[in-house]
């Protein structure tokens, strides 16, 4: 163990870690509302909303995320759109993540008893209000655990940004290895830092699951319980 090398490279590793955290946060913050509207659009009665949303979700989930990142990083300049590496990585990851998140959110929405929507409609409650007041409070507890599972996958996916010139945690670790020829130290540090982020998310997940189980009882048990 060469702790002196670790100390020497720690500032850049830490910098990479911060970029990974920032990238993860930005991607989740931007993807979530997009995914939410995609999920609503996929449930819409209007074909003009349903079809494009369906194509978006299915196309981007069918492709390797790296290919989407390459589009953002290499192909956009072809159309005169020059993004920085961080912007291109963010754009590519947002496109892929929102497609996956949309499916998770849609499953949560679909798990709410359709009778709830019928009841709201029959009472004459407007769409957006019934969504906010009736639908979401029931869908969020169901969708939250899979949402966090997906968030963990998205955090891990940010490592791909290292392949399009973003100096994230993985990129800095690889750089340190290729200079020092000490793989174990830097691989271990990178692995531990990723594990820290994901352990925090996993803890959040089990906290919300317990909280939801207490507060919502059987609703949180998922689609099967709701369907009965």
């Amino acid at each position: 163990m060469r702790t002196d090398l670790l100390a020497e490279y720690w500032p850049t590793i830490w910098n990479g870690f911060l970029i990974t955290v920032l990238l993860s946060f930005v991607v989740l913050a931007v993807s979530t509302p997009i995914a939410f509207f995609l999920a609503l659009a996929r449930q819409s009665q209007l074909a003009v909303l349903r079809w494009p949303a369906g194509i978006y979700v299915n196309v981007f989930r069918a492709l390797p995320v790296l290919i989407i990142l390459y589009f953002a990083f290499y192909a956009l300049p072809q159309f005169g759109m020059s993004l920085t590496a961080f912007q291109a990585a963010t754009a590519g990851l947002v496109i892929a993540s929102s497609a996956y998140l949309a499916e998770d959110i849609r499953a949560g929405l679909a798990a709410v008893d359709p009778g709830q929507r019928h009841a709201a409609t029959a009472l004459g409650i407007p769409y957006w209000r019934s969504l906010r007041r009736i639908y979401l409070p029931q869908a969020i507890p169901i969708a939250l655990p899979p949402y966090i599972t997906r968030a963990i996958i998205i955090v891990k996916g940010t490592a791909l940004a290292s392949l399009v010139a973003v100096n994230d945690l993985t990129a800095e670790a690889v750089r340190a290895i290729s200079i020092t020829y000490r793989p174990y130290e830097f691989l271990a540090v990178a692995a531990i830092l990723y594990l820290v982020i994901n352990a925090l998310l996993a803890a959040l997940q089990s906290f919300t699951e317990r909280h939801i189980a207490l507060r919502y009882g059987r609703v949180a048990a998922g689609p099967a319980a709701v369907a009965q």
Partner: protein
Amino acid sequence: MNLDFGIIAVVWPALLKGSLVTVQLTLAVLICATPLAVLVALGRDSKIPALRLPLAVFSAVLRGIPPLLVLFIVFFGLPPAGITLDPFPSAVLAMTCYMAFYFGEVFRGGLQSVPPDQWRAAEALGLKPSRTVVRIILPQTLPAVLPPYISHATEVLKGTALATAVAVPELTSAARQVFVVTFRPFEVLIVAALIYAVLDGILLTLQYWGERWAARTGTSIRF
């Protein structure tokens, strides 16, 4: 900027070659990871703590770090230990380790769906544990396992793109080499994306059949 798909006529042999490597890599990972995953699944619910605990730790660690990092761990970590592998086998090794635990969870769910009395009935007949697993238990897990298995297989297919990072000449890597030379990334990437979509489509078709089969047998396989 105007697009020029005529470039495809020039570059398609390289992309085709890359696609073949992608298919080979996907199959190699599936072939290696699947039996390993069965062992992981059996081990994770084993009565023996010496088996169960390390597997639980491995599983938590492997699922908490990026697959790309696992690839780098194999790629950079093995040579100093005296093991030098070519890019292709090191990618297979890394993805196999990673996916064995994902598939392991799938099989674990499948194993838990088989009533424990099936183990007892086989035990009472004097069947060996290995034969019990292969002949009695695994076939019964199929309806529960097949759909998630295939959807994980599409993750393997898409995941092979990562191997470009360790210089495996698969489709994404081939695409990059081609567009770096031709300065036509959009056209080349569109073709690569289409090829991935076709390969995905093949797996999704299998999944569709599998799900129909599971729906037919799944509900009635219990007594």
